[in-house]
C-alpha cells in the first residue's frame, strides 16, 4: 500500500497511468471493431505510417504531432478510397494497396531518419514511445482527441456493426456501408495518430489487436466484448507501467507480453472447453458446401 502511495507521489508516474488509461480505452474500443472487421492489416499500416510522419515533421522542424495526424489521416483516406471494397465485406481479403502503403511508409520513415542524421534515441522513441515524461498538457490533448474518437465511434457503433457483419442487408436497410467503411478507417487513423505519440508506432498496434482479439475469443456478445476488451487493455497497461517502474525493462515489453499471455490463455481455455463440451451431434455440424 505504501509502495503504491510512493509511486503515485511522482507526477510522471501519475501522468503515465493517466495517459496509459486513455490510450488503453481508445485502442480497445477501436480495436474491437478493427478485429471484427478483419482490418488488422490496415490497422497495422495506419500505426506504422505514424513513424515516417513524425520523422518527416522533425526533419522539417515541426511538431511530431503534425506528422502523426497528417500521415495517419492520409493513409486512412488512401486505403479507404483507393480500394473501393476496403472493409465493405468480411469475406474479402484485404487488398495489396494496404501492403503498398505500408512498405512505402517504412522506407520513407528510415529515409527521413537518415536525412536527419538522426540519433538512435529518436528512432527508438518513434517506434516504441515513452510512457515517462508525459506532461499535463499532453494528457489533456490525449483526452480530448481520444474522447472525441470514442464518442464518434459510439455514435456510429450500431450501423458500423451492421455494415461489418452483414453489408448487403445493411445496404438494403439504408445504412451507408461505404461511407462508414472510409469513416471508420479515418477515425482509426486519428486515434492511432494520437496514441502513437505516447506509445510509439509499434506498441499502439499491440494494444489495438491483442485485447480485442482476446475479448472476441472469450465472448460473442458485442457489448460484453467491448467491456472486456477495455478492461484487459487498461489492466495490462497499469500492470506494465507499474512493473516498468520497479524493473529496468521498458513498458512496451510488459504490455505486449501480458496481452499476449492473456490471448494465449483465452485461446487455450476455449480449446479445452470446446473439447470437453462438444455436445453437438456431428451431422448438424456439417455444412454441405
Amino acid at each position, binding site marked *: 500500500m505504501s509502495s503504491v502511495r510512493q509511486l503515485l507521489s511522482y507526477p510522471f508516474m501519475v501522468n503515465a497511468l493517466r495517459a496509459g488509461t486513455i490510450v488503453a480505452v481508445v485502442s480497445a474500443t477501436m480495436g474491437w471493431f478493427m478485429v471484427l472487421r478483419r482490418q488488422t492489416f490496415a490497422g497495422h499500416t495506419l500505426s506504422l505510417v505514424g513513424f515516417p510522419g513524425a520523422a518527416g515533421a522533425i526533419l522539417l522542424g515541426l511538431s511530431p504531432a503534425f506528422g502523426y495526424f497528417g500521415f495517419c489521416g492520409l493513409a486512412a483516406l488512401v486505403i479507404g478510397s483507393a480500394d473501393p471494397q476496403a472493409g465493405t465485406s468480411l469475406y474479402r481479403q484485404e487488398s495489396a494497396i494496404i501492403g503498398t502503403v505500408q512498405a512505402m511508409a517504412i522506407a520513407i520513415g528510415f529515409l527521413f531518419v537518415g536525412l536527419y542524421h538522426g540519433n538512435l534515441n529518436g528512432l527508438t522513441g518513434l517506434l516504441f514511445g515513452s510512457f515517462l515524461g508525459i506532461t499535463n498538457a499532453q494528457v489533456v490533448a490525449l483526452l480530448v482527441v481520444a474522447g472525441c474518437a470514442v464518442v464518434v465511434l459510439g455514435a456510429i*457503433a450500431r450501423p458500423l*456493426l451492421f455494415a461489418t457483419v452483414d453489408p*448487403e442487408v445493411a445496404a438494403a*436497410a439504408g445504412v451507408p456501408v461505404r461511407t462508414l467503411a472510409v469513416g471508420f478507417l479515418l477515425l482509426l487513423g486519428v486515434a492511432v495518430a494520437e496514441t502513437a505519440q505516447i506509445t510509439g508506432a509499434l506498441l499502439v498496434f499491440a494494444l489495438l489487436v491483442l485485447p480485442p482479439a482476446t475479448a472476441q475469443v472469450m465472448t460473442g456478445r458485442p457489448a460484453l466484448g467491448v467491456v472486456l476488451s477495455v478492461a484487459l487493455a487498461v489492466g495490462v497497461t497499469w500492470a506494465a507501467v507499474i512493473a516498468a517502474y520497479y524493473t529496468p525493462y521498458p513498458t512496451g515489453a510488459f504490455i505486449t507480453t501480458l496481452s499476449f499471455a492473456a490471448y494465449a490463455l483465452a485461446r487455450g481455455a476455449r480449446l479445452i472447453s470446446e473439447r470437453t463440451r462438444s455436445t453437438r451431434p456431428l451431422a448438424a455440424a456439417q455444412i454441405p458446401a
Partner: protein
Amino acid sequence: MTSDRELPGSEAIAVGMGVDPGVHPGAHVDEPTALPKFRGALQQAVRARDAEVRFGNRILWDHVDLDVVPGTFAAVLGPNGAGKSTLLKVLLGLQPLAAGRVEVLGAPAGRERRCIGYVPQRKSFDRTLRLRGIDVVRLGLDGGRWGVPVPGRANREARASVEEAVRLVSAEGFAQRPIGDLSGGEQQRLVVAQALVRGPDLLLLDEPLDNLDLANQGAVAKLIQRISRERGVTVVMVAHDVNPILPYLDQVVYVAAGHAVAGVPSEVITTETLSSLYGARVEVLRASDGRLVVVGAPEPPAVHSDRHAQ
C-alpha cells in the same frame, strides 16, 4: 419494332397472377387476420408493368409484367444469369428500371423499404465470426440506428421482438451461440428471423436454400410458408430448384431468355408456357416421384446477349 420483340406472343404469356385471391386455393389472403396488415385497398404487394433492366446496352430482361397477391408465397425461378436476383434488387429499389414501372406495397420501389425484409444471396457467415445469432437478428431490428442501445423500456421491447422472431423460425436452441459455429440450415433460419424481426409486409429472399441439403430445403420452405400464412407476409423467394419447395408455393415467376412469366405453378411450369418463354422447344417432364424436370432449355447468356446485340 425492335429486335427484342421477336419472341412470339411474349405479352400474351406474361399472365398476371389473378387479382381474385380465390383463384388459387393456396392463397390465404381472405383470412381475416391477414387483411388489416395491408392497409385496406392494397391489391398487389408487387406490381410491375412493362419493366425493363439493362446493364449498359445489354438488356437483362424487358416487358416484364408481374403481380404478387398480398400474403402469398411466390418463387422466382429460372436458369443462372437470367436476372432473378436483379428482380429482387429492383423490388428493393437498389436497381433502377430502364423502362416501365414497378410498385411495391403500393408505392414506387424503394419507398417502403422499412416494410421489406431482405435476405441476400450468401454463402455463409465467416466461421470465425464471434457474434451471437441473436445479435445478428437484433441488427435487423435497429442495426441502422445511430448510437448504442441504452437499457430501458425500448431496449426491453426490442429484445422481446428479437425473441419472438427467433421463436418464429424455431431457432431458440442455438440463437445464443456464435453464428459462425452454426450449420448452414441454422444460419439460414436466423437470417430469416433477422428479416422478419421488424414485422415486414414483404419478405424478399435470394436463394435462401442454396447451400442446404434437400431435407433442410424442404424444412425451410415449409417454415417460410407457415410464416407467410400466420403473419400474412408476402414472400418472394428466388430459388434454384423448384422441386423441394413446390408443395408450399402459391405462385411462381419464371425468368428466362430476357422475359418472365408469372402464375400458379401448374400453369407456368408446363411445356407450352416455358417453350414460348424461351422461344425454343423445351419440355417439362414429370418424373415418377412427382419431380418436375425442364429439359432442353438453352443457356441464357449466349442466347440473350446475341439476341440484343446492336
